[in-house]
């Protein structure tokens, strides 16, 4: 059991959250809870509305409909917001001629956070040696670490990270993964967006999947992986037409495969083999294929992708 925080966990609650920009509905009736004590992955293709949702949570944008609260209150009404919610949105959105130390000091002062905490968070993200340097000269990864330091300043119960691994090297990615896991283990609410399914599958306990502003899935990562990794069996036979009829009668899903084969879903290979034997159909190949999680995610969000490359002509 994780040690509970002194302030108790805080939940992010979105209810019918909607944001309309002109003719485009960026966020479309989203309802979800982000719970304490776990890492919740917020995942969808680019342009799905993840950043807009996070801006709505922070009260930066006004919802066109519905609402969202943190710990039962709209963000703008929190008495000391950085003590309750730490957010990394756009790490580059910093005045470039200020030092890292001053950037954090300004944020700390605005919420009555003691000055010594600035040094502490610089230590946590490994930027002590860069404290006096101008932020404008920071690499993308250093900027990202500074943004994470800012989020941690108020020791908040809720943390939100928008695409935190962007620009981080492999070492940095492992570091932030561990950081998020440990923050959740302390009982904090950790809400992290990504467009990379593979990244989220190893970091998140729970997934909220959106596409074109709409909620597609809201379930545990293991459930999502289970349900997504449906196996398809590739079958070759000189009597494909007859076999297809028999398979469909047995309730299997059949789709054309490459090079005179079919792919069968809903039946495993022994069952297909038995069915073929019982119908007197000769099989030339029977092979189980594993879909990747990334494929499953692309299938799920395919219809809701705004911008995608057209399939290359075969």
């Amino acid at each position, binding site marked *: 059991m994780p040690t509970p925080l002194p302030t108790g966990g805080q939940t992010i609650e979105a209810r019918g959250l909607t944001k309309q920009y002109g003719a485009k509905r960026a966020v479309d009736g989203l309802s979800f809870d982000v719970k304490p004590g776990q890492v919740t992955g917020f995942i969808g293709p680019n342009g799905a509305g993840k950043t807009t949702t996070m801006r709505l949570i922070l009260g930066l944008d006004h919802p066109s409909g519905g609402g969202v609260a943190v710990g039962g209150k709209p963000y703008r009404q*929190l*008495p000391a917001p*950085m003590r309750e919610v730490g957010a990394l949105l756009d790490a580059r*959105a910093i005045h*470039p001629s200020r030092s890292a130390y*001053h950037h954090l000091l300004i944020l700390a002062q605005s*919420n*009555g956070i003691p000055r010594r905490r600035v040094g502490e968070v610089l230590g946590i993200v490994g930027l002590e040696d860069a404290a006096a340097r101008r932020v404008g000269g920071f690499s993308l990864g250093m900027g990202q670490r500074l943004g994470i330091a800012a989020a941690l300043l108020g020791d908040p119960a809720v943390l939100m990270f928008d695409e935190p691994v962007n620009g981080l090297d492999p070492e940095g990615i492992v570091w932030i993964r561990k950081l998020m896991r440990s923050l959740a283990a302390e009982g904090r609410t950790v809400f992290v967006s990504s467009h990379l399914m593979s990244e989220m599958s190893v970091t998140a306990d729970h997934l909220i999947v959106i596409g074109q502003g709409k909620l597609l899935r809201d379930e545990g990562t293991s459930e999502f992986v289970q349900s997504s990794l449906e196996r398809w069996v590739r079958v070759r036979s000189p009597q494909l037409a007859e076999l297809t009829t028999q398979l469909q009668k047995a309730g299997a899903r059949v789709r054309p495969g490459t090079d005179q084969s079919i792919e069968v879903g809903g039946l495993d290979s022994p069952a297909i083999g038995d069915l073929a034997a019982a119908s007197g159909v000769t099989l030339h190949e029977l092979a189980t294929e594993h879909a990747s999680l990334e494929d499953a995610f692309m299938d799920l969000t395919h219809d809701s992708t705004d911008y995608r490359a057209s399939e290359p002509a075969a």
Partner: protein
Amino acid sequence: MTAASNVDTPGVAKPGYRPASFTDALHSEWTKARTVPSTRWTLITAAILGIGIGVLVSGLTAHQYARDTASARSLWDPTALSGAGLVIAQLAIGVLGIVIITSEYATGAIRTSLAAVPRRGRFLGAKAVMIAGLAFIAAEIITFAAFFIGQALISGHAPTASLSQPGVLRALIGYGLYEALIALLGLALGALLRHAAAAIAVLVAIIFILPAIAGALPSSMEHTVEKFWPTQAGQQVTVVGSTSNELPAWAGFGVLCLFVAIVLTAAFVALSRRDT
């Protein structure tokens, strides 16, 4: 002892920190202002213009006094001469007010700032108090420096002004108050327009161009426009004497205060309603 008295009341536990205050926001705004080089450079520019031009005008005009006619001598105003640079320095002060907010929009830092201080009134109010205070102090330093150096140069060539003469101290304090209002006007325009170039254009129009255009109006209208134009009226507080054509010092300053209050209110409404 009843069971109820033993029951903890969950949910009412006080958080382990105090709520953030206006003073916290003000403290943060001051740190913002002093940790970017643009603040220093804008103030140095204001000082060079304000003191330099005031001293130059005082020195040059003093030597002219001996050749002036009696009617020209009756308009002799040594306080206005040493304060002449403040008319130009107000541009730098106004730009300081503009940049203090437009730089946040330009860099995107506005989102970080408003996530830290989500109450729009507190955010804008802290910026306003900080910039008005900074502009007032800077303008007073410039004003008094220009005054003492200017009067020293005039001394021996023409009558000088001194703090004990009626209206002189009020005029010198008035320069600081006027510049504070110009800084606030800059802040309000910057918050409304979000782009430095646009806000500077509007500020220059308000201070210099529109009053100049009023000169093309028929003279009766021209007088009314000049009398009540906010920045013209506001400058009366920096004038030692008074003329029958202009509003009295504090009434004129009141007109400027009202105008700036309206633009600031518009900026607050825009900041509250707009997406960031």
